[in-house]
């Protein structure tokens, strides 16, 4: 069972003012991640419905469950789609998808829709990886890197620290800001070594908050180094679980001297949203399904 690093709720959403039967192009995106899965439905490039739920042990089923939940009570079925794109870790296991596209490309395109065409840098920090993406005004990736080899800079690394200090993961951000002055960051990048370093600091009498502040700023600095490789340019946005940790976000903003954009929608759907937009572009290129059911 995958652990959950951030508290988030399973839910679905539909735009009740949009009559999908009047739409010409219906596309779907399904993002099957290691922890959560999302399905997005777009009608003529407008967001119509989405769902966000836990990934089960079986990727194909998780993908189908997510899509069915997004479509719940709308009267729409899989037969009404012009194109469906799968993305994320389990993207090749979406049996009803017409194509698989990487989460990097989908995040950029989804970020472009969600934050508007001025967004140039997207930082996505998940439970087990960290991505830095640069994109152009159309949401096309111009530079990216992904780090899923090392736990430093991921939700997993933060969880190791929360465990060590016996605090709940969602309290880490606030606690880390409850210090009189910013302590020097933990010097080890490696989570294993940082953990022994932190144990030493606690023994020296450091408070929980001070140790968390030292780790959050080390994490922010590490992310800053990752971003430097791709070269940050405004506007800047943060997605993924860590976007919910104010202790890390505020320190990244301070290092970059930039404020992250505030999203209009749940940032967790960025990948699936991008996938659905890719689907629409492919339909416009004449690559849509020929046997689509008439609404």
């Amino acid at each position, binding site marked *: 069972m995958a652990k959950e690093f951030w508290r988030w709720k399973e839910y679905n959403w539909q735009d009740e003012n949009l009559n999908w039967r009047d739409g010409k192009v219906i596309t779907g995106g399904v993002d099957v991640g290691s922890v959560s899965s999302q399905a997005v439905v777009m009608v003529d490039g407008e967001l119509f419905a989405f769902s966000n739920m836990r990934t089960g042990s079986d990727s194909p089923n998780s993908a189908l469950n997510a899509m069915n939940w997004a479509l719940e009570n709308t009267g729409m079925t899989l037969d009404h789609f012009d194109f469906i794109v799968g993305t994320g870790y389990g993207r090749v296991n979406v049996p009803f998808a017409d194509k698989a*596209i*990487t989460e*990097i*490309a989908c995040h950029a395109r989804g970020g472009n829709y969600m934050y508007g065409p001025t967004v140039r840098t997207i930082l996505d920090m998940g439970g087990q990886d960290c991505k830095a993406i640069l994109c152009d005004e159309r949401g*096309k*990736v*111009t*530079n*990216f*890197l*992904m*780090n*899923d*080899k*090392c736990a*430093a800079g991921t939700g997993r690394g933060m969880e190791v620290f929360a465990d060590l200090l016996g605090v709940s993961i969602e309290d880490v951000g606030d606690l880390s800001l409850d210090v009189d002055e910013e302590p020097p960051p933990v010097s*080890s*990048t*490696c989570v294993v*070594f940082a953990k022994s370093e932190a144990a030493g600091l606690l023994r020296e009498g450091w408070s929980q908050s001070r140790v968390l502040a030292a780790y959050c700023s080390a994490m922010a600095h*590490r992310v800053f*180094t*990752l971003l430097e*490789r*791709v070269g940050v340019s405004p506007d800047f946005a943060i997605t993924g679980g860590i976007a919910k940790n104010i202790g890390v976000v505020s320190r990244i903003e301070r290092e970059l001297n930039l404020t992250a954009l505030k999203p209009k929608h749940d940032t967790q759907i960025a990948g699936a949203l991008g996938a659905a937009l*890719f689907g629409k572009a492919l339909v416009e290129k004449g690559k849509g399904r020929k046997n689509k059911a008439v609404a």
Partner: protein
Amino acid sequence: MKANYGYMDGSGEYYITIDTDKCMECSEHFCVKACPAGLFRIIEDDYEDMVAEIIPNKRQAIKYDCAPCKPLEDRPELPCMAACTPQAIEHSW
């Protein structure tokens, strides 16, 4: 697009960068055979260009897989970079 494959850990930054704008112009794909560790393959990317990438399950160990090509002394030109006609490959370390 600059595609950075690899990682950063406590010991350093290990990235192989492929400039796909240059890479997509090439049809020779000598990199695939040149790499003794077999790290490269040619794929159609998300923008429908035929480009080289680092094979996904090899991306987490490039520091080790590339080590034989990077002796500390008398380091020759890297075979992947030497083979790449459009000069689209760079190593960060």
